[in-house]
């Protein structure tokens, strides 16, 4: 802690100041007088809250978060944890709905620990969110801690600096000059530096040339962008702010978009292949998935009012006021109906056909074919025999089986026959008719992702601001040259916040090649 804040030049500095605000002289007597001032120059030697006040709890919290060391530790923990999280797939990527057993079965003991430690859902865990929030808090505080003093210092720069300050810059020379020579040299330097687009200020025996100061704000603007971005992430915890759901829509169907007031109709889903790949041995490669969709809303009478039509493609979602429907999955040939033919057993003649709509099967419906009536007495969408009893394993028509009753004209009761798709079931010999599968009716089904993400514009703003800051900070540099004539000596010192090579080259171009370090070409 620097106690002595009054400089030799007479200026009274705030407690904590490292370099005198007025003349730039280092205030700490203990610093070795030959050391370069690189480190002190970072924040122009200004007092910073975090280095000045260290007593109260608030001070300590402030200091904790304003420390770059802590920030670096947070950053390192975050990326190491992120890396650990990729050792095994996250839960949303595993092909199983029971992670409790999946990890152990697939990856052994390590997998079990991975799951039990919560690493399999770590990116949405509270502690990962805490890490990111701490980085966010740290960003805000560290930026405030530095940017305010930095702003003040850069705004009120004095042209005339102490020769100690100039000599202890990383680049500095001192040469003997006569009085006339000195003013001539200063004028020449001022001239040449302005040609290099330096902004030059002159006083009687001092000169300050400066350029690219705005690049000093780059890191802070970048940090502001990051803060905006993180705020966008935090906002997702607001109810209704984002939505992530999924809906399957068959061709021709209209279904409610989950968690919303909207309905979506599928007017046709298609898949196309690259022609040249259709006959290749690896199988055809898909060139396009497309779903013609109509979005509806119910009006007050419960009638569906169309809002928008759109052919949804991968990479080209339907977007209605922020509600987005994405082409995400495609199922070809869902079975919706089956056609049957009735064959006369003896003559093998086809007596007629009827078709069954699988979504609408009732016990009383009567199908007619060639003068015969057919009733469905039982229907097993996913047929199996368990304990000698026919059962259905699911409601999906994976292996539909029907128990038909075929009734002759004018009769009350008919004969029963069991028809199982994909199987030749032996019905009683006494049956007159044989019912055979004659065709399938299929439709395509689109899997649509349903998304609302109100933070998108915030992310974008954050990203743009952040990039702006990065470009400012990295592709420009803040360069300064100080000149001071005192006691028959010309002192020149130069500082840049980065890219020393370029400033040395510039100085050699204005006639100070001695400031340029020898490189291999020279």
């Amino acid at each position, binding site marked *: 802690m620097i106690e002595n804040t009054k400089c030799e030049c007479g200026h009274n500095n705030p407690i904590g100041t490292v370099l005198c605000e007025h003349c730039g002289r280092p205030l700490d007597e203990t610093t070795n007088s030959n050391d370069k001032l690189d480190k002190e120059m970072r924040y122009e030697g200004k007092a910073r809250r975090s280095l000045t006040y260290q007593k109260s709890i608030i001070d300590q919290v402030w200091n904790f978060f304003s420390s*770059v060391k802590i920030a670096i530790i947070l950053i390192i923990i975050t990326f190491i944890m992120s890396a650990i999280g990729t050792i095994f*797939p996250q839960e949303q990527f595993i092909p199983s709905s029971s992670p409790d057993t999946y990890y152990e079965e697939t990856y052994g003991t390590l997998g079990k620990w991975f799951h039990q430690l919560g690493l399999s859902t770590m990116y949405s865990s509270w502690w990962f969110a805490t890490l990111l929030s701490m980085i966010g808090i740290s960003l805000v505080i560290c930026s405030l801690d530095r940017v305010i003093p930095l702003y003040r210092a850069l705004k009120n720069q004095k042209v005339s600096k102490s020769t100690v300050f100039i000599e202890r810059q990383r680049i500095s020379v001192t040469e003997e000059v006569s009085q006339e020579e000195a003013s001539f040299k200063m004028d020449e330097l001022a001239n040449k530096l302005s040609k290099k687009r330096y902004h030059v200020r002159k006083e009687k025996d001092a000169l300050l040339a400066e350029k690219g100061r705005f690049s000093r704000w780059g890191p802070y603007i970048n940090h502001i962008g990051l803060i905006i971005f993180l705020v966008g992430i935090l906002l997702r915890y607001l109810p209704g702010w984002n939505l992530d759901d999924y809906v399957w829509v068959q061709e021709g169907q209209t279904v409610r978009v989950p968690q919303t007031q909207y309905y979506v109709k599928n007017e046709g889903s298609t898949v196309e292949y690259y022609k040249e790949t259709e006959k290749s041995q690896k199988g055809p490669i898909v060139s396009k998935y497309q779903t013609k969709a109509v979005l509806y809303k119910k009006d007050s009478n419960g009638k569906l009012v169309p809002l928008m039509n759109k052919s949804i493609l991968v990479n080209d979602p339907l977007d209605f006021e922020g509600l987005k429907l994405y082409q995400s999955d495609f199922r070809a040939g869902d079975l919706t109906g089956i056609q049957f033919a009735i064959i006369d057993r003896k003559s093998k003649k086809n007596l007629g056909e009827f078709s069954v709509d699988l979504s609408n099967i009732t016990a009383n419906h009567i199908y007619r074919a060639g003068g015969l009536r057919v009733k469905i007495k039982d229907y097993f969408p996913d047929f199996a025999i368990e304990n000698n009893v026919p059962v259905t394993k699911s409601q999906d028509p994976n292996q539909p089986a029907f128990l038909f009753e075929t009734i002759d004209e004018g009769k009350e009761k008919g004969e029963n026959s069991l028809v199982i798709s994909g199987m030749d079931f032996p019905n009683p010999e006494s049956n007159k008719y044989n019912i055979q599968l004659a065709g399938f009716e299929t439709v395509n089904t689109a899997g649509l992702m349903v998304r609302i993400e109100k933070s998108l514009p915030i992310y974008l703003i954050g990203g743009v601001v952040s990039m702006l800051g990065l470009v400012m900070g990295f592709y420009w540099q803040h360069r300064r040259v100080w000149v001071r004539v005192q006691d028959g000596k010309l002192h020149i010192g130069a500082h840049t916040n980065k890219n020393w090579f370029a400033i040395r080259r510039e100085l050699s171009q204005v006639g100070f090649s001695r400031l340029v370090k020898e490189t291999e070409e020279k």
Partner: protein
Amino acid sequence: MTAIMNNLLYGTFIIYLLAAIAFVVVATDVKKRSKIWGNIAITLSIAGVVIHIAFMISRIVIGGHFPTSNMFEFIAFLCFALVLAFIVIFAIYRTYVLGAFVMPFAVVLLAYAAVFPRDVQPLIPALQSHWLYIHVTTAALGQGAFAVSFVAGLIYLIYKVGNGEKSSHGKYLETTLVIIVMMLGFSIASLFFQAIGYKASFTHEIDGNQVVEEYQLPPIVAPHESKAVTVESFLGFKDPLLEVPAWMKGENAASKFNSVIWGIVVGLVLYAIYLLIVRKNLYQLLYPLVKKLDPELLDEISYRGVAIGYPLFTLGALIFAMIWANEAWGRPWGWDPKETWAFITWMFYSAYLHLRLSRGWVGMKSSWLAVGGFVIIMLNLIVINLVISGLHSYA
């Protein structure tokens, strides 16, 4: 057209190789010729970039899309980005010795790219977006600059370890160099077996589907619970020694892992032969090339690589990536392994910058970090594709 495209690729390779040789001549030459050789070297590099661009254009004409959609195309583009970043940095610093390291590295990278299937493939729907090219190319340009930073960092390390100032780092530096030799070994082995037309294939089950996995190198390891379909014998060596563990289930993971093993083996053999002949560490061999350099300048070049690359990488690998992911998958970010590793890379370089700026990590520490950053990028490219069947594993 395809013939033209292939010739352009070979042309690019040969010109990069010549540029590399010219740069090495400059770096080793003590006499006056070096001025001319220097001009030749940089002219060749620029010519290589131009032909490389011509190659990419011919590929766009054939395939109808920008060539960054499979492993070959991506690594070839990374090589392009590396040379481009080198030319930019050369324009600033005029260090020929940097070229003597960057250009051979570019050659290794292009040879490595050539190992992967080179046919032009049609784009699956998820990849049909302009944002994809914008995202991948920008990210790769950033990575190219990071690669230059890596090379400069490596030269710095060779300088400091070679002149005895930091000899305790010798074994780590040597290990790093041997890993590069392994990459070279992998490329040599792959191109050799490609040239003799070696083939083997296995069938096995992934998530309930029977798939056939092709090998371009003799199988040291077979896929998990697989059956051989055809395995040509090589020097009487036919049966795989081992099976990969069950969790290696990315697309062609076993075949890729097999390739990694080949790279390690061939690399180690090459290194052993080298040791027998030359009898000193690689960095000692390289030290004379770099001993006249100014270490402070090297340190700055290494930092400059990061400074140039970081904004590009942020834009490409994070911002554009999010825009694309939002269009293709309906979310800007999903913690898919590739995305996570882009994030890790970015955080790593953020740590590098803060350490350098605020904690004064320059010189040795900073150079090691530059090496580490690039190792992460390579890990992302090689290992993630091996193990994980995420959304990105087409590449």
